[in-house]
């Protein structure tokens, strides 16, 4: 009887607590600002969902800054954007090992947004060009040994923030249209 009353209270409480919501999809709202710290995670791909509105990968952790054996879902861009970054569906297969610099979900949901991905011991490839821009402006990009994405060159930098835009302009890394120049133009006298 007690359990019946409790179940009824759960249902009634649940019905009473609905409320409207607003907002729209934004990776920074879910995983923190572009410039926020990442963690290092190693894992194994156990599922690939190469589909819109965004691709995702299921991984089981094997090491890094997380205990082994945890189940996490990596979210990323829509297919078109992934391809502009230089990723292909065939790059990701069940059983592949991955090394990640990644953000985790701000509300403790089992979601990650990778900053950079290495597959089967390959190069650590960028998955977020705006964070690359921030690191380039801060002078830390080279030390991270992250391979920049194909679409870094020619990207509009505004989403990286006004201070980053100013710094990139000072560094000579924006063209006449205000778009990113990468790799950096060779210094005069150098080839």
């Amino acid at each position, binding site marked *: 009887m007690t359990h019946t009353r409790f179940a009824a209270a*759960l249902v009634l409480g649940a019905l009473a607590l609905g409320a409207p919501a607003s907002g729209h999809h934004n990776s920074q709202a879910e995983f923190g600002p572009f410039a926020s710290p990442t963690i290092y995670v190693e894992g194994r791909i156990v599922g690939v969902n190469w589909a*819109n509105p965004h691709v995702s990968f*299921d991984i089981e952790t094997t090491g890094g800054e997380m205990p082994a054996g945890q189940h996490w879902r990596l979210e990323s861009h829509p297919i078109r954007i992934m391809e502009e970054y230089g990723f292909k569906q065939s790059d990701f297969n069940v059983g592949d090992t991955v090394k990640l610099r990644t953000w985790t979900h701000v509300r403790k949901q*089992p*979601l990650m947004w990778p900053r950079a991905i290495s597959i089967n011991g390959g190069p650590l490839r960028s998955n977020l060009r705006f964070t690359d821009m921030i690191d380039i402006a801060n002078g830390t990009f080279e030390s991270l040994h992250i391979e920049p994405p194909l679409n870094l060159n020619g990207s509009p930098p505004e989403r990286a923030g006004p201070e980053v835009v100013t710094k990139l302009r000072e560094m000579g890394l924006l063209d006449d249209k205000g778009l990113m120049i990468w790799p950096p133009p060779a210094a005069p006298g150098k080839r």
Partner: protein
Amino acid sequence: MKQALISALVAATVSFAVWQVANRVAAEPETSATPANLKLRVTEELIEDGWVDGARAPGADHKPLAAAASSICYLTKIEIKGVQGPEDANSCSIGVDEFTGFWQVTAAVAEGGKSQVRCNARCLVWE
């Protein structure tokens, strides 16, 4: 007479069985948490709920909500815009994702659809 005897025997057997089961249930210790031990909370309304803009990229957007072992989740809003016709199918649903063990809300626009669908959910969590 024979029929009456059989009926009486069946009735006695059933009564005995029910009595045995009732005694066993009463004797079992309370193993689950009682309501007095539980703390209930309701998850925040998601800022980033499940949503799909079919005009940009139709598909299914899955959003984990809360661990299914200690919560119950429910849709709080379904918003659909820009339906182009009967073939522009969309949906909101909640189910348990077996991989993560979390409830998840799914917003979906079928391939070829142009509509937008937004699905909100909250969860009642016990700890």
